[in-house]
């Protein structure tokens, strides 16, 4: 039996929260997407194709759908009475104005867990701010450090802010359900996309309160030794120093130094030297010791540049696949930068059964990521395509309420 099989979720979200219900549905909950009679705004969310929104196709998958006149939602209470969780992302005050706000529903249904996803949170001086993915990304911290010196900060080309918030909302709903098993009470779970994003900065948002006055990543790499980037990921290093052109694309490789992960760089140069003895001069360096060597004046920028030049020359002749195979064989911290096509064709994802293909109501096959986790004894995958408008209204009423008719529904 699926983990959340006994739980019912009524999902009022638009594109800002659609993912939360999908996650709960993947884990086995009966998630019913509630749409207005003319359909959810998420049906027109980017990216679009000839038949509509792939955003809707993917993040409304595994849900059933009902359509209802939300301006006049009589009869909806019968469904809410059967729900364990309501999720909404309409923005502060909107659900209240429809008579579907937390306070009212909590009074009527004290066991109901009520989850709100918004840009800045339900209350507070910025709660009514106009918002977009980019603006929330700016307010939450991950945008600012993410720039090249001569250009403004840049976001990820695929909008992310509300996805982080929606995933947090799914977690918050589950915390509240766990609390309910002890208290018997439901409660309000208030998720702010802005607050969700601090964690996507590697703690950088805390530099000010920590009193770290110059943590800027662009200053780290060649600065004084105490500032040397000893992370394994190169988070403190200019991104341009971690990207390399290869024969058919790009490679991600950070010349990491120091005790925690310098050995990966040593291994990389051993691989180079195994193919060309000229590179032995880099392979003979213990890259774990480089921070100490810099401190003693035995290693300088010129040697870094020389090593980088050799890496560039070596990788230019390699394919993405050859690098991936070498990384596997020699345990290197170095991988190809996959584009969308590479991710779709990844032998690893294929071997893991990551993708699901479902046929929608128009007979069209849709292939998409099917599982975000592997759980023993369970198969997470896409069981059903995203619903058409009002597709399951009768079926859900019959299942949840024992009636096939609801006023104002279609």
């Amino acid at each position, binding site marked *: 039996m699926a983990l959340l099989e006994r739980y019912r979720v009524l999902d009022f979200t638009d594109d800002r929260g659609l993912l939360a219900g999908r996650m709960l549905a993947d884990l086995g909950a009966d998630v019913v997407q509630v749409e207005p009679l003319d359909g959810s705004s998420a049906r027109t969310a980017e*990216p679009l194709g000839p038949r509509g929104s792939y955003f809707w196709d993917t993040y409304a998958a595994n849900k059933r759908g009902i359509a209802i006149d939300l301006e006049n939602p009589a009869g909806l209470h019968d469904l809410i009475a059967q729900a364990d969780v309501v999720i909404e992302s309409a923005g502060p005050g909107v659900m209240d104005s429809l008579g579907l706000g937390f306070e009212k529903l909590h009074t009527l249904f004290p066991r109901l867990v009520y989850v709100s996803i918004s840009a800045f949170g339900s209350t507070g001086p910025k709660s009514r701010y106009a918002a*977009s993915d980019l603006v929330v990304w700016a307010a939450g911290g991950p945008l600012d450090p993410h720039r090249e010196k001569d250009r403004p900060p840049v976001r990820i080309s695929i909008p992310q802010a509300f996805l982080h918030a929606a995933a947090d909302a799914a977690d918050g709903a589950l915390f509240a359900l*766990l609390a309910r098993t002890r*208290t018997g009470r439901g409660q309000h779970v208030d998720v702010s996309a802005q607050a969700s994003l601090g964690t996507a900065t590697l*703690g950088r948002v*805390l530099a000010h309160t*920590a009193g770290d006055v110059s943590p800027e990543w662009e200053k780290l790499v060649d600065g004084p030794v105490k500032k040397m980037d000893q992370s394994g990921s190169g988070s403190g290093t200019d991104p341009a120093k971690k990207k390399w052109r290869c024969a058919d694309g790009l490679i*991600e490789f950070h010349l990491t130094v120091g*005790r925690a992960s310098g050995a990966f760089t040593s291994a990389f140069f051993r691989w180079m030297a195994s193919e060309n003895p000229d590179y032995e001069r880099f392979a003979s360096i213990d890259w774990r010791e480089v921070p100490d060597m810099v401190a003693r004046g035995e290693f300088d920028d010129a040697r870094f540049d020389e090593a980088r030049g050799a890496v560039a020359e070596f990788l230019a002749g390699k394919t993405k696949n050859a690098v991936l195979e070498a990384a596997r064989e020699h*345990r290197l911290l170095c991988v190809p930068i996959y584009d969308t096509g590479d991710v779709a064709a990844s032998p690893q994802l294929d071997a893991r059964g990551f993708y699901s293909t479902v046929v929608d109501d128009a007979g069209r096959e849709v292939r998409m990521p099917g599982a975000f986790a592997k759980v023993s004894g369970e198969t997470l995958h896409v069981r059903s395509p995203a619903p058409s408008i009002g597709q399951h209204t009768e079926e859900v009423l019959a299942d949840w309420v024992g009636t096939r008719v609801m006023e104002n529904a279609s």
Partner: protein
Amino acid sequence: MSKPLAGVKVLDMSWVVAGPLVGRALADAGATVVRVESGTKVETARLMPPFEGGVAGHENSALYGNVNAGKLGMSLDLRLPAARAVARSLADWADVVLESYAPGRMKKWGLDYETLRATNPGLIMVSSSINGQDGPYSGLAGYGNVGAALSGFQSTVGWADRLPLGPFGPYTDYVAPRFGLAALLAALLKREESGVGAYIDISQVECGAYLQSPYLAKYSAEGAVVERRGNSDAAFSPNGVYPCADGRFVAITVGDDDQWRMLATIMNLPDAASDFRTLDVRVRRSSELDDLVAVWTARHRAQDLEDLLQRVGIAAHVSADSRAFCEDPQLRHRGHLVELDHPLHGRVTVEGSRYQLSDTPLSADRAAPVCGQDNTYVLHDILGLTAEQIETLESEGALV
């Protein structure tokens, strides 16, 4: 008010960011979380900025402090059998084990799920890794930047005319824990009814790819590869980040044609209002439009523009650096930054819980431990070892 996970016991053997964030959320929810690490191979997060007082040091990382607040600190050198025996006892005590070692390592130590389940059948275990526990590339080493590369995120960030810039830091480290936590909490709910445990295998690459689901579906249907497009957007224009007079930046998104007319009026550019009347034109000529907006923003302070544009309902916000984030009135209203006592630093600040629950709030109640801070408590009070047994472990070098 009792917290949602009061009484739940967790052995946290994860490290750096992705795994520890899961343990952090459980600690916030009231679970007793024992974080095991070793001073002989210093956990990477301890080496990473920002540092308290700007001074690098194993006990100074605010990143480590943020992802480990609320946990008990136990130091064990797991290379030694005696230390592994302690870990095994903690796994028998625990309801939940978290780990993020390279796939196969826990098995070598006799700490894999099958082994632990034999004596603790209700155990829930979460393994977090870059590629997952099986498959041809499961053995690949990596941090979140590797996860970001193999999940497609690296290629989708940056300017169309330049090399990809990559998402900031190990991006999938921020994504995967939200999904691992969801699966874990669902398993805890299931266990409340059935008593049955679960093994959860989280791959950072898969979680990252999951957040690109619509684009992977589009690729499968149409062969369309996601291209880097700076800050431009297919649905909104202008949509950009612009330099301001005070050296800061402001992010602005114009939602529709009406808002564009309003912005053009505010910028005193009536001709532009009509030249760029429709979204189609604005998207097609977005770089031209960005230049116009940037000329205007360069004459104003970033905060003034946020205030001005929000007053008329246009989405705008200062590109928040750490100071702006820490002083943000909205985050303060939510109590998002929490000050805690720290044995070495006096007071430290961590981020609060991201899940604001009205009835049973989650909160960080204790700063992250210094290495080995709670060894005696864990060994004596939790595992019931005698002073003599603890001394033996110490003399064997197991507790470093």
